[in-house]
């Protein structure tokens, strides 16, 4: 069975410092992986997706994620946080036609 675990429920960074949101997955075959972001009172927006073409995936707003099969990880990073990055982030693995969501990580960005 496929599953995904976000290792931190809450991450706090200062504006201008790097962001790291951690995600581990479990999959019996080559997975499709996604990161979504949800700003307050909004739906989910796709940040990036892993499609097996390249292990380092670049997304919108300066985010990127690296697929590491040996570590079963798909961590999300950004070199420099902006105040507008404060939101909830979901790591997602695809199981046939359905998505399996992690519990979410709330990113707080302090001035």
């Amino acid at each position, binding site marked *: 069975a496929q599953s995904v675990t976000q290792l931190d429920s809450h991450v706090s960074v200062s504006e201008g410092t790097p962001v790291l949101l951690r995600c581990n997955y479990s999959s019996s075959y080559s997975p499709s992986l996604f990161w979504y972001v949800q700003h307050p009172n909004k739906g989910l927006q796709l940040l990036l997706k892993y499609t097996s073409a390249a292990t380092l995936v670049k997304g919108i707003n300066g985010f990127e994620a690296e697929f590491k099969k040996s570590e079963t990880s798909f961590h999300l990073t950004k070199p420099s946080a902006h105040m507008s990055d404060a939101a909830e982030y979901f790591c997602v693995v695809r199981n046939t036609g*359905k998505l399996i*969501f992690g519990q979410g990580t709330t990113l707080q960005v302090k001035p």
Partner: protein
Amino acid sequence: DVKVTQSSRYLVKRTGEKVFLECVQDMDHENMFWYRQDPGLGLRLIYFSYDVKMKEKGDIPEGYSVSREKKERFSLILESASTNQTSMYLCASSHTGIMARNQPQHFGDGTRLSIL
């Protein structure tokens, strides 16, 4: 851009009422989904549909039903609303077929439903 529209942003209903949540997408997507989102639990799949008049149970279908009479519209129905169904409800859609594995789901802005 894909547009997934949920008919209400906020809704307040009473226990025992029959509640309808509507979702419309404009990209001719075959797949449509209903999730509920609760703090600390992420998103959980209630029902999904691969085609018109087709429906499949998700992980938490109890207390809900769905209707898909037209390709662009997917309705979630709470047959007799209860307080434990107070939640944020999110609708999503996606393509199917050979490329579907790498296709993301596109989400609406959600309906925050309160059952009193």
